[in-house]
């Protein structure tokens, strides 16, 4: 294989992984935009969605599309419940307290998954066909490419939703000025609930894609940590930023995997994020000063 081919293959594969980061990152950003809460349970919500999918698709042997739909509905309901029982009660408390609560929720979800399914790694059914794609001579892993197409579609839908739908506009208004949004008759609490549910739905799709590319364990949610870097890089409140940053971090990981020894691969994205923050403390596209956590 020529040098150029290696470069292109890794680039495309990296961007495909980046798509998952982008999705999870969007889940973070939606919640953060609306309520200023950094949701550390995002990765684990994604994991919970993936397990639900596994249950439906493998244990109950349903068609994958049906299984995905059930998983999305289930995680929306779970998010609604979390919002109702934990977060709504904490409204008015310092943001840091709410953020710690999301940490706790994450631990609980992971614990439940570990008790119910053990730490064994499950294989998800071939939701996305394995057959590789060829662009000229360049071979691409089929799952990554199809995952990427799915991701792109979903990102596009989210952007359209935020820009044009009334709920999206209400969300942006709430993000811009909560009190005034309230004065306009926007039910701010319902907007919060809506963002949590949207984040859970997006997380489920991302979780299923991520788990079908690798495998499913209760630790699937640790991808959330990589995504932490992504959203900080993109700007916690920037949809566009998180899309660019997600793809970039995915690409960077692939590049280090291709050209650098193993251990460095793990830390490169973080070095990139750190370097970026020194230049632009609010992230690439972040706009307003962001609550320090």
């Amino acid at each position, binding site marked *: 294989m020529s040098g150029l081919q290696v470069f292109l293959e890794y680039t495309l594969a990296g961007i495909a992984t980046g798509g998952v980061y982008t999705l999870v990152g969007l889940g973070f950003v939606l919640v953060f935009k609306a309520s200023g809460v950094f949701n550390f349970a995002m990765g684990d919500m994604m994991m919970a969605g993936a397990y639900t999918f596994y249950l439906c698709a493998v244990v109950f042997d349903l068609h994958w599309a049906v299984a995905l739909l059930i998983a999305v509905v289930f995680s929306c309901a779970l998010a609604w419940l979390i919002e109702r029982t934990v977060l709504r009660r904490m409204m008015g408390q310092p943001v840091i307290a709410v953020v710690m609560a999301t940490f706790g929720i994450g631990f609980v979800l992971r614990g439940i998954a570990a008790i119910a399914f053990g730490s064994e790694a499950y294989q998800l059914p071939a939701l996305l066909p394995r057959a590789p794609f060829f662009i000229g001579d360049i071979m691409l892993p089929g799952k990554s490419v199809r995952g990427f197409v799915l991701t792109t579609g979903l990102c596009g839908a989210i952007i359209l939703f935020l820009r044009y*739908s*009334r709920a999206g*506009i*209400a969300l942006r208004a709430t993000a811009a000025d909560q009190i005034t949004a*309230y*004065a*306009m*008759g*926007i039910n*701010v609490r319902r907007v919060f609930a809506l963002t949590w549910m949207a984040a859970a739905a997006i997380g489920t799709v991302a979780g299923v894609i991520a788990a079908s590319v690798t495998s499913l364990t209760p630790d699937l949610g640790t991808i959330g940590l990589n995504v932490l870097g992504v959203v900080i890089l993109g700007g916690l409140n920037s949809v566009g930023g998180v899309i660019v940053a997600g793809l970039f971090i995915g690409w960077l990981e692939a590049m280090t995997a291709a050209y650098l020894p193993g251990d460095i691969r793990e830390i490169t994205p973080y070095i990139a994020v750190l370097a970026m923050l020194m230049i632009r403390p609010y992230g690439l596209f972040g706009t307003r000063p962001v609550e320090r956590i």
Partner: protein
Amino acid sequence: MSALEVCDLTLSFGGISALSGVSIVAADGQITAVIGPNGAGKTSFFNVVSGFYRPTAGRVLLDGRDITALPPHRRPALGIARTFQNIALFHGMTVLDNIKLGAHTQLQTGLFGAGLFLGHARREEAELTRRIQSDVAGFLELDTHADKEVQDLPYGLQRRVELARALAARPKLLLLDEPVAGMNREEKQAMSRLILDIRRQWGTTILLIEHDMGMVMDLSDHVAVLNFGRCIATGTPDEMGRNQEVISAYLGEPGAPLAGQAA
């Protein structure tokens, strides 16, 4: 008939009492000015009417209906709209989107339904856009700015967008908190004309907080004077100009002479 009636309103923050025993009536289709020195409790009064502050005691009646305990986001649907002393527009959004948000509660489809953005919700949305462009934006001469982001507009225009947003829902009761603060003479005159036009065109009941006495005299049918959280006088603008207690309340406040400019 009175569109708004507040009775014996008391509001305290810890030890400070922002309002004590305030009763004010805003007659249907009239312009009622609420005046008083800085810190008198004018904005607090608005915040009680729009539901942000829950009064310690007293009642708020809208068209005879008790709305004292109604949460703020349920009030626009009853026809209450307001502007803010410090312009509170949604930055990062266009003028049109900002104005449309004012009519948020008028649409039939709920948040979740609208999220799907299908059929009915879409038609309703398009109809609203059309109505806002033809009525409100045109009326306030904002049509050429519809697609600009609000934070890029000059100050005077931002105030006008805020007014347009409040009008988008065709409110019955409009609360204007210092709508000409920081404006020059011409802008003030233009805004005064707009306020009169609004009342003429839609018969809106208007409550107006204003420091500029000239403007209060010109616009209002009725005046209520607050001082240290108490309503010390109500009456016609002329009566207020002759009221000794009102005059001394203002003279006690350096820099806010009765017949002068904004404080």
